[in-house]
């Protein structure tokens, strides 16, 4: 089933983050082979963490050609409203249907902090603009014929202050037109649980697919990196300690992810998971197998 149909069908959904690539097409093909059959769609990042890489459009189009369903992330940091619309429509020309709209980390989070930040639109505005494209018109009102077939999604961070406002912010994004919400990795299970309970109570979970992120890291180093370097992510010191001081830190890191995934899937209104794999190898199939989530295994 196509990803947009799957999201609209109400069935379980698994998405995965596609690793960053630059110019190594062979690596891109290898990663695509590794994820094919396990994820219903793969996120193509847009200059992730404010570092320049091969463009979201180029990678999404390449993955489409390899038979994967890309979710093209579009961030507001680097481009104005004309360029953002051009990217979405241009990718749609190549069959890229799913877009994930985000505000984006600031340029100061990356390796070129001298860059001019744009933020001509913000995340919720970009969602509305992408929906206008799907309805057959640019923001200016100029018609697009035929209208691109788009499934518009977004992100939300249940683990960043102000916690009690995050459900309202998710609601705003859904009102703007988001039909799936990939939730930032959250190392505070109570925050994720409170967020999902609020989203379910507000009737949001029947209007959009909520997909908490699970990060598969190799050990405590990955957790520490996220805690210190990734905006909006906090990893409790005791969680890092538990992994670091385990007899087998790699196994402990995997078990942490497995426990997080099990907890996330137990929450009301959670439709599936978004997986970010820093371990490589068979980590994704192993996690899904341990969670007893069957995926199609066709190539």
């Amino acid at each position, binding site marked *: 089933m196509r990803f947009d149909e799957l999201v609209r069908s109400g069935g379980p959904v698994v998405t995965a983050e596609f690793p960053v690539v630059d110019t190594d097409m062979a690596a891109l093909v290898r990663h695509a082979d590794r994820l094919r059959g396990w994820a219903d769609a793969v996120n193509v990042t847009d200059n992730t963490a404010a570092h320049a890489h091969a463009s979201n459009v180029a990678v999404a189009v390449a993955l489409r050609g390899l038979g994967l369903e890309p979710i093209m992330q579009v961030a507001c940091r680097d481009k104005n409203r004309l360029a953002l619309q051009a990217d979405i429509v241009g990718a749609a020309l190549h069959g890229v249907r799913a877009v994930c709209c985000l505000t984006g980390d600031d340029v100061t989070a990356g390796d070129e902090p001298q860059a001019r930040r744009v933020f*001509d639109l913000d995340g*919720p505005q970009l969602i509305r603009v992408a929906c*206008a494209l799907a309805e057959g018109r640019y923001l200016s009102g*100029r018609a697009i014929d035929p209208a691109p077939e788009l499934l518009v999604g977004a992100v939300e961070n249940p683990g*960043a*202050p*102000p916690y009690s406002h995050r459900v309202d912010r998710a609601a*705003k994004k859904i009102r703007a037109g988001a039909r799936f919400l990939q939730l930032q990795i959250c190392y505070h299970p109570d925050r994720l649980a409170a967020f999902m309970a609020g989203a379910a109570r507000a009737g949001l979970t029947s209007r959009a697919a909520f997909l908490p992120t699970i990060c598969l890291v190799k050990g405590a180093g990955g957790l520490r990196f996220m805690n210190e370097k990734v905006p909006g992510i906090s990893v409790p010191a005791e969680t890092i300690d538990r992994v670091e001081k385990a007899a087998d830190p790699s196994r402990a890191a995997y078990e942490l992810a497995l426990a997080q995934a099990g907890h996330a899937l137990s929450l009301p209104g959670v439709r599936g998971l978004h997986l970010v794999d820093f371990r490589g190898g068979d980590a994704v199939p192993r996690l899904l197998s341990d969670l007893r989530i069957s995926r199609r295994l066709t190539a």
Partner: protein
Amino acid sequence: MSQGPVTSPGPVTSPDPVTSPDPVTSPGTAGHRAVAAVEHAVKGPVFDCRMCGQCVLHSTGMTCPMTCPKTLRNGPCGGVREDGRCEVDPSMRCVWLRAFERSRRLPWRGHFTDLRPPVDNRLAGSSSWINLLTGRDRRTPPGWQP
């Protein structure tokens, strides 16, 4: 001899209505600039107003969203630090966290979650007071409305 159909230069978008230049309400006129100067003198010290020309202070807890380093109009980004400081400038508290807290004390707090349209960059530096009176600040591109 028929010349065939005349080719349209492209779909006609809705142009901004052309209004006769009013000495006060038209941006760029001396009257408008004078009101903008007064507005900035009042709102600058109180709200750190950046004169975007389309003020939304009433719906953002009387906190200017243009002071957010990302100039976000629709709420806090996902990068707010654990202690409530800004992702971009750790020396400051998140503008939207402050806006959220202040808005809860206002009778019209329901407007906090409004979906605010993209900024019209042409209005930068003009008087939002005049733009409010003329309705200019509520004019959005035709594609914005669902």
